[in-house]
C-alpha cells in the first residue's frame, strides 16, 4: 500500500541517515516505557497483582507488588526502546520490539490489577486466553477469507457481509434441519453466495471492487435483517433455534497447563480456524495453487502468458473465501448465540484490519486477529474490575493500530500489486 504512495512524496528509503525506521520505533517505545514506568508506576497501588494460571482466583499464580511490577516492566520497555535506538541487527528487531511491547502491556496490567477493588486483584490467565481466542475466531476466519481473495487480486471489503450471511444461513438451515452439519454446510454456501456476487460483478462486470464490497455488506445486512424480522422473530422456535456444536476435548493436549484448558477444550470452529491458518499458509507458499494465486495477484498478465487461467483462479479463490467466511459466521450461530439482526457488528471490518495489519499473510493475520481479540477481551476484563480506562478506548485499539500500520509507523505494509485491478485479457 505505501509503496503506492503519492509519488511526489518519495517513499521513505530504507536507509535515510541516522533516523532509520528502527530508531524511530525505538524512540517511540522508549517514550512509551517512560510513560509506563512513571505514570503507571505512580498510579499502581501496593496491592499484590496476581496473574493466576486458572479460571479464577485460585491456583498457581505469578505474583508481584503492583508498583514494583509497573515500574519494572516499564523499565523493560525502556531498555528495549533504548536497544533499538542504539541500533540492533535487523533480525533482532522484531523480538526486541515484541519484548518491549509485552513489557509495556504488563506494566499497564500491573497498574490495573493492583488498582482493582479489594479481592479482585487477580487476572485469570486461562480465562483471558480462552476469551481472546473466542473473540478472535471470527476475525481469523474473516481475515483468511481476505487473504484468499486479495492474494488473487480481488479486494474483499465484503467480509462483513460474508460472515453475516454465513451466520444467518447457518442458523436458518441448522434450525430447519435440526442438524449442525447441515447448518455448517449451509453457512458455507451462504458465505459463498455473497462471494459469488462479488466475483461475478467484480470479475465479469468489472465493477469497482471496493464499491461492490460496501454494497454487498449493505445487501447482506438488509436481506438477513429482513428475513430475520419476517421469519425468525415471528417463529423463533422453527427458524432460529439451531443446534450447537458441543466442545471437544482433545486427549493429552487438554492436560497442558494453562494452554490446555484454554485452547484444547474448545469447539470445532477453534480447531478448524487454527487448522485453516496452517493449511492456507502452506498452500499459499508451498503448492502450485499458491504460486498461481500469488502470481495472479501480483502480475496477472505475466501469469496469463505462462498459461495460468487468471479469471478462473480468481473465481475459485473468491468463492473459497466465501466458504471460509461463511463458516466463520457459523462460529457464532452454531456454537454461541442465536441469530440477531446485524450480529457481526463490524467484526468483518476488524478482520479486514487484521488482514492488513498481518500484511496479507495467513500467519500475520492470525497474530493480528489474536492481538485484536486480546484487546477486546481486555476491555471486557477491565470493565469487570471497574477500571478507570473506558472500554471504548480499548475497543478503538484495533482500528488505531491499523491506521498506524498503514501510515508506515509500524513497518511498511504492501498489498498484492494487482489487488483491486480487474484483469481484461488483451
Amino acid at each position, binding site marked *: *500500500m505505501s*509503496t503506492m504512495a503519492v509519488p511526489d512524496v518519495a517513499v521513505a528509503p530504507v536507509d535515510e541517515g541516522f533516523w532509520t525506521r528502527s530508531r524511530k520505533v525505538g524512540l517511540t517505545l522508549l517514550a512509551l516505557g517512560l510513560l509506563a514506568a512513571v505514570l503507571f508506576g505512580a498510579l499502581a497501588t501496593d496491592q499484590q497483582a496476581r496473574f493466576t494460571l486458572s479460571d479464577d482466583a485460585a491456583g498457581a499464580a505469578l505474583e508481584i507488588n503492583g508498583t514494583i511490577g509497573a515500574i519494572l516492566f516499564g523499565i523493560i520497555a525502556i531498555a528495549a526502546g533504548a536497544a533499538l535506538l542504539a541500533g540492533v541487527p535487523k533480525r533482532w528487531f522484531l523480538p526486541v520490539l515484541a519484548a518491549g511491547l509485552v513489557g509495556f502491556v504488563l506494566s499497564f496490567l500491573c497498574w490495573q490489577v493492583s488498582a482493582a477493588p479489594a479481592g479482585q486483584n487477580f487476572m485469570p490467565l486461562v480465562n483471558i486466553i480462552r476469551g481472546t481466542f473466542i473473540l478472535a475466531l471470527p476475525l481469523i476466519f474473516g481475515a483468511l477469507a481476505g487473504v484468499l481473495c486479495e492474494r488473487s487480486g480481488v479486494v474483499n471489503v465484503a467480509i462483513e457481509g460474508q460472515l453475516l450471511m454465513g451466520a444467518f444461513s447457518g442458523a436458518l438451515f441448522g434450525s430447519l434441519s435440526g442438524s449442525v452439519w447441515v447448518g455448517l454446510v449451509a453457512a458455507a454456501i451462504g458465505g459463498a453466495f455473497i462471494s459469488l456476487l462479488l466475483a461475478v460483478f467484480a470479475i465479469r462486470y468489472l465493477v469497482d471492487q471496493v*464499491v461492490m464490497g*460496501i454494497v454487498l455488506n449493505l445487501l447482506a445486512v438488509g436481506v438477513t435483517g*429482513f428475513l430475520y424480522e419476517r421469519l425468525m422473530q415471528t417463529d423463533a422456535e422453527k427458524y432460529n433455534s439451531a443446534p450447537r456444536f458441543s466442545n471437544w476435548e482433545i486427549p493429552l493436549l487438554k492436560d497442558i497447563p494453562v494452554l490446555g484448558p484454554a485452547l484444547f477444550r474448545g469447539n470445532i470452529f477453534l480447531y478448524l480456524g487454527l487448522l485453516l491458518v496452517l493449511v492456507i499458509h502452506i498452500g499459499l507458499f508451498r503448492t502450485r495453487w499458491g504460486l498461481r494465486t500469488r502470481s495472479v495477484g501480483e502480475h496477472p498478465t505475466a501469469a496469463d502468458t505462462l498459461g495460468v487461467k487468471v479469471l478462473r483462479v480468481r473465481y475459485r479463490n473468491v468463492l473459497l473465501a466465501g466458504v471460509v467466511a461463511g463458516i466463520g459466521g457459523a462460529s457464532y450461530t452454531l456454537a454461541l448465540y442465536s441469530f440477531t439482526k446485524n450480529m457481526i457488528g463490524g467484526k468483518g471490518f476488524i478482520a479486514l484490519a487484521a488482514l492488513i495489519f498481518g500484511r496479507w499473510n495467513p500467519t500475520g493475520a492470525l497474530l493480528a486477529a489474536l492481538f485484536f481479540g486480546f484487546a477486546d477481551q481486555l476491555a471486557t476484563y477491565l470493565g469487570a474490575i471497574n477500571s478507570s480506562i473506558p472500554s471504548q478506548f480499548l475497543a478503538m485499539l484495533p482500528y488505531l493500530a491499523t491506521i498506524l500500520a498503514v*501510515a508506515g509507523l509500524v513497518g511498511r505494509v504492501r498489498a498484492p500489486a494487482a489487488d483491486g485491478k480487474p484483469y481484461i485479457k488483451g
Partner: protein
Amino acid sequence: MSDPTPQSGSPDKEPASEAQAAQNALGNTEQAESATEPTRPASSKPDPEAEPKPSLGRLFLDNLWAANTFTVTLLSLVLAIVVGAVLMIVSDPDVLHTYTYITARPADAFNASWTLVSEAYANLFKGSVFDPEAFSGWLNGSNGWQAVLAPISETLTYTAPLVFTGLAVALAFRGGLFNIGAQGQATIGVIMAALAGFLLPLPPGLHLLVAVLAGALGGALWGFIPGILKARAGAHEVINTIMLNYVATYFLTWLIVQNGVQDPTRTDAISKAVDNSAQLPRLLGDNLRVHAGILLAVVATWAVAWLLNRSTLGFELRAVGANPDAARTAGISVTRTYILIMVFSGILAGLGGSNMVLGSTASALTPLVVAQIGFDGILVALLGRVKPWGVLLAALLFGALQAGGNRMQSYSGISLELVTVLQALIVIFIAAPALVKAIFQLRAARAARLQTSLAKGW
C-alpha cells in the same frame, strides 16, 4: 494509487449531455424524456446502422431502449423492485402456502402475492409522495392541508442529510479518492454540532450558525486525518476512513455518558438536548418535520457544482482525479489537493451530521444518532453518477424510500430492512450496466460510456 494508466470512462470524460441525462434520470419521467430527446439524434448520427432519415419519433423510441444512463437507471429501479417483491413473497408463510397447490388453483397464489406486494409498494408510495386518502380528507374537510404534504415533508427530512453525505463522497470521488469515512466524519460533525448546541449560551441566530459551523469543523478534522496520511505517508484512504469510522463511533458512545454531556435526568446513553436557539427552523409549521436543512442541502449542491466546474480548485481536483501524474507534471500540487479534497469532503459530511441533531430527526446525541447516512451517502453518490445535481436527485429517491419504508413497516408489516435491500440492489444494478443491458436486451448504443470503471487497487 499512482496507477499511471488513465482511468477510462472516468466521470470527467462524459460530455455535458450525459450529465444532463443523468440529472434527469431520476426525476419526472416526462420531463426527463423531453430533456434527453434533443441530445439523442446528435449522438446517434454517426451510427452507420441508422436508417438514412428516420423520423424523430422512431429515433426517440430506438434510443429509449438503448443502454443510456436514463434507461439503465430506470430499469435498475424496476429490477430492484422485482427482487424486493420476490423477497416479500418468499418470506410470507401464508402466501407461500398458496404456492403448494399452485397447479390446482394458480389464481390463489397469484392473487395472494399480488395483494401482498401491491399493498406494500402502495404504502411505500403513500408514505413518501402522495396519499390520496389524505387528499380527499382535505377536500371534504376531515383533515388539514398538513396531512397532504406530510409524505413530502417526511421525504425531504430524510433527503437533507443524504444530500450532504452523498456530495461528500461524490466530491472525493471526482478527485480520485474513495471516502468511505463519511460516516465517521458525520459522527464527529454531529458531536461538535450537539456540543455547540447545548454547551454554548448564544443568542438565537448566532447559536444556530455556530452549531452548524461546529459540525462542519468536526467533519473537516475527521477528513483531514486520512487526507494528510494519504498525502504524506501514502496511506490508503479507503482503509484509514473505514478505521476512523469505528474510532468515531466508539468516541461518540464514550462521550455520551460523560458528566456534563449526559442528560442528568436519564441513566441511559442520551445527551442533553440541543437548545431551541440552535435548531434549524421548520419550514411548514410545527406539525411537519421538514426543516431548513433541505434548503442548506440545495445550496450545498449548488456550491459543490460551482466548486467542481467553475473554480480553480475544482479544475485541479478533477485533473488530479483523472490522472495524478499528469496533474503533477502540469504543476498542480497533488498532496495539497488530496488534503483539500478530504477536508472539503469532511466538511460536507460534517454538515450532514449536524443535520441529524439540529434538525427534526433528533435533538440529542444517542449512539445511533447518525443512523447510516455515511454509508447511504456512498450509494447516493454512485446512484447520482458522482455529479452534484445527480446526487441531489439520488438523495431524493433514497429519502423517499426511507420515508415510504416507515409507512410500509407500520401499515403492511414489511420490515424497514427491505428499503436497505432495495437501495443496495439499485446501486448494484446501476454499477453493472452490462448486466442490465443483457437482462433487457438493450441496444448497445453509447454503452462504452456506461462502463463503470472507478476501479483502483488498495
